């Protein structure tokens, strides 16, 4: 598009370097496309995890604010419940009402309990489906410790894909707006891939690097133990997250709380936080080493002007504010690590930022699919097409949203565990797709994904009835409905165009 007579802004990139980076990008992209697509698609949708939790449990009371006394009563109930059931959780988390999650929830290893504005028990509060989605995104449903590290490594590899892809585009700025949609399958896919990648590059780099940082923090601690602390990994943990023994000893010095009400320490802590940090509302509370003499109370409080998720305020045994972990004002490294979640999940600017993250995340998923499409189109143009791989890939791409929706619907209707349904279904669809001609998949796949998505709000209504149409429930169900309509229209359109001469030619090119 440029005149060509003008001198370029920076030196010409050697063609051998570009060729090498293209090769690296291709090798890496083709190896990782499927798993990257899974992680990116689920991540894009999981931006709304808070809304999904509210949709999934529509009968849990919604609360804009809970008094310290109500929180104290809720904790007292949970303490008695835990003692009754014989559970022995190490940590118990109290999610206090906030604009992001207007509910009072107590969560520990074995159970999730929901409470009303008075702190009285209101029923179970577990979010199986939301966890199914988020755990697929951050651990691929593998055991947490392993899955988190693997996803961290995938984050590094996504950074490599972004950087290598950018190096492979020496005309990045010159072609910034070039989009040749009518110039054949391969060129149109190349342009869509490149434009989405270039304009979304800052977002892609940020989500990849932040995801990698969160996933690889355990590696950093594992290495720091022998390198920095003579093999003492506990000291490495203590450096980053505080020394539990020293903190417990310090907390004990304050003695008992003055009041006799239930969980007086927690009530006093919340009151003290509100008084001493009025601009930092509580988001969650952690009771670590729960039920022991060294039980520690800390409150994660929001800092709306910052990118950090929370600052962790520690409280003594009388509920007095003892110290802060330093995520808001401590070492730069701590502040950077504490900022990773919000920047990764788009939780820093309300619904507008979340919608932008959804769009850019879906764009990144689309980049994964078009990357493989480009390779397939090039192979077909060379006369070495892979129709079986192409059909399997198409089946996998459309089968992923279809199976996410189907697994969720089956759980919603009959409480069938979603993980095996999803993985067995996706594997079957992807392998079964090998034998289905691309011309058929071209319209059947989006249509099936659309119908499966349509079933989800219907299943939600069937399970919870019209009363479940709370604000969050209605918004999420309408969103599923809109997504289903788009997919069904796409499938029908593809079916109709496959009957026209142009459509037949297109389908022929695709196959």
């Amino acid at each position: 598009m440029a005149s060509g007579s003008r001198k370029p802004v920076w030196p010409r990139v050697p063609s051998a370097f570009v060729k090498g980076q293209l090769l690296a990008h291709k090798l890496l992209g083709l190896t990782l496309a499927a798993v990257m697509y899974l992680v990116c698609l689920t991540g894009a949708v999981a931006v709304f995890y808070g809304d999904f939790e509210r949709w999934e449990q529509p009968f849990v009371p919604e609360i804009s604010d809970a008094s310290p006394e109500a929180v104290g009563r809720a904790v007292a109930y949970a303490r008695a419940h835990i003692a009754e059931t014989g559970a022995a959780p190490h940590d118990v988390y109290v999610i206090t009402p906030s604009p992001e999650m207007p509910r009072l929830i107590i969560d520990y290893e074995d159970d999730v309990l929901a409470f009303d504005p008075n702190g009285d028990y209101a029923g179970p509060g577990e979010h199986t489906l939301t966890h199914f989605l988020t755990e697929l995104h951050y651990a691929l449903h593998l055991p947490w410790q392993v899955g988190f590290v693997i996803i961290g490594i995938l984050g590094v590899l996504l950074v490599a894909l972004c950087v290598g892809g950018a190096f492979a585009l020496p005309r990045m700025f010159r072609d910034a707006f070039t989009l040749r949609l009518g110039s054949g399958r391969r060129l149109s896919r190349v342009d869509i891939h490149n434009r989405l990648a270039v304009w979304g590059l800052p977002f892609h780099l940020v989500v990849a690097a932040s995801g990698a940082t969160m996933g690889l923090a355990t590696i950093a601690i594992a290495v720091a133990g022998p390198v920095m602390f003579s093999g003492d990994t506990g000291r490495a943990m203590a450096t980053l997250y505080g020394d539990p023994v020293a903190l417990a000893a310090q907390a004990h010095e304050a003695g008992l709380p003055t009041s006799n009400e239930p969980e007086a320490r927690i009530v006093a802590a919340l009151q003290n936080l509100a008084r001493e940090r009025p601009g930092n509302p509580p988001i969650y509370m952690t009771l670590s080493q729960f039920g022991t003499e060294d039980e520690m109370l800390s409150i994660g409080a929001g800092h709306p002007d910052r990118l950090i998720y929370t600052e962790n305020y520690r409280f003594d045994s009388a509920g007095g504010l003892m110290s802060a972990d330093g995520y808001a004002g401590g070492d730069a490294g701590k502040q950077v690590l504490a900022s990773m979640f919000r920047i990764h999940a788009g939780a820093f600017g309300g619904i507008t930022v979340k919608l932008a993250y959804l769009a850019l995340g879906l764009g990144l998923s689309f980049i994964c699919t078009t990357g493989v499409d480009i390779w397939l189109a090039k192979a077909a143009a060379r006369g070495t097409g892979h129709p079986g791989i192409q059909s399997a890939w198409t089946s996998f791409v459309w089968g992923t949203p279809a199976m996410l929706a189907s697994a969720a619907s089956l759980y919603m209707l009959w409480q069938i565990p979603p993980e095996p349904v999803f993985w067995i279904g996706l594997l079957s669809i992807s392998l079964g797709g090998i034998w289905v001609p691309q011309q058929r998949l071209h319209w059947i796949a989006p249509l099936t994904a659309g119908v499966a998505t349509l079933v989800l709000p219907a299943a939600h209504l069937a399970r919870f009835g019209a009363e479940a149409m709370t604000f969050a429930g209605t918004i999420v169900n309408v969103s599923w409905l809109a997504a289903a309509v788009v997919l069904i229209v796409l499938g029908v359109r593809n079916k109709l165009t496959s009957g026209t001469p142009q459509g037949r030619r297109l389908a022929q090119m695709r196959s």
Partner: protein
Amino acid sequence: MDVILQTVGTVGQAAGIALLYLHWRRRRVSGGGVLAAGWAFILIGMLPWMLGVSVERGLALASLAPMVAGLFLSAPHGLADLRSAARDRPARRRTAAGDAAAPAAEPPSPGHLARNTARWVGSLIVVPAVAIASMAAWQGFAPGSDVNRASFSIFVLMIVWVAALLWLLASAKPWRVTLITALVATALGGGIFIMTSGGTI
């Protein structure tokens, strides 16, 4: 007041992207002034987002609008190309030519199995090893507090991993890159081991 300024900032950023688009559409005959003005609008439009929040939060918010605006402004060219392809037979021929432009399949050159083996060995073993060794070296020798060394070592790991992986996969001689990387990993890892333990197990 902040919201109004931020809205003005977003509009300014979108206008900056639009100027870049116009500069691109006129095939750069509009000169460097328009280009500079476009970038200036984008940068100045960021400023209102810094009001009342920390720099990192402001930057995160201010970076979103240009990305979305740029994607939207790619659409006109795409739609115009689609329309011209629909009514223009030569364009269809161009389509066919475009799709056929890929070079014919070449038989694998000698040694491709060895190169691929080197790429797999390098990617799965040697590159992670040099990245972890670099992380350890940073933790052991970089200046700063314990917290900062441990925290920023994650970024060192990431940067070294990405650089080494791209170097390996882009290389026409991956065995050589694998060997060099393995040597660096051994030297770094050995150095760290000797420095931290005095060489005793």
